[in-house]
């Protein structure tokens, strides 16, 4: 249950592929794991009113966000038979093609990992006080809305 300790989810800047690889590699000693479900959110070059998004600048109500992330973790551990879970979300500028969200759920069998991962991502989008400012090439911006 050491996995359930309070972690800091928010991290400055994009989430590098090497960071994800290190997270995966660390799990090779946990040989009770049979299934990992990973979600990665990547910034898209969306076109809004004929202008292309170059980057998203994320801001957060950090203290409340960390509490929400903690609550989401706890709920998932209660509901699903999980071995471990890691969540990382960027704050600051994340360019198109870079990663802003990394949800990593591990369990003995695949059903729990799949279902928990999806539920966690939906909860993050809905419940966590984070905002994305979509920045265009002409230095204007709009505020992202989640669907």
């Amino acid at each position, binding site marked *: 249950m050491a996995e359930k300790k309070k972690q800091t989810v928010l991290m400055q800047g994009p989430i590098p592929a090497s960071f994800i690889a290190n997270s995966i590699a660390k799990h090779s000693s946990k040989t009770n794991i049979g299934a990992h479900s990973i979600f990665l959110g990547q910034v898209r070059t969306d076109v809004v009113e004929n202008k292309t998004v170059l980057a998203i600048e994320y*801001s957060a109500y950090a203290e409340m966000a960390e509490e929400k992330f903690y609550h989401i973790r706890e709920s998932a551990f209660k509901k699903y038979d999980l071995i471990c879970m890691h969540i990382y*979300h960027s704050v600051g500028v994340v360019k198109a093609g870079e990663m802003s969200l990394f949800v990593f759920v591990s369990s003995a069998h695949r059903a729990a990992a799949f279902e928990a991962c999806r539920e966690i991502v939906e909860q993050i989008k809905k419940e966590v006080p984070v905002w994305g400012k979509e920045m265009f090439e002409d230095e204007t911006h709009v505020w992202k809305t989640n669907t």
Partner: protein
Amino acid sequence: MAIEVLLFGQLSEITGADKLTVTKASSTVELVQVLHKQFPNLALANYKLAVNKVLTEGNTVLKDADVVALLPPFSGG
């Protein structure tokens, strides 16, 4: 009495501030009235309130040193 008000996302742009102190507000309804008077465009914005990091609906009594956050629709991920 001092209520700390936090503003996020587009609400910081509307008000030009990410933090304010309001001294005369004994409830969230009163606080919102004060803020809308000071920043009329805020009344047009879509947001929720959190008192001490907990989302509130309806009217909530405020006490000294409470922290009230104005939260536009979340768009993380």
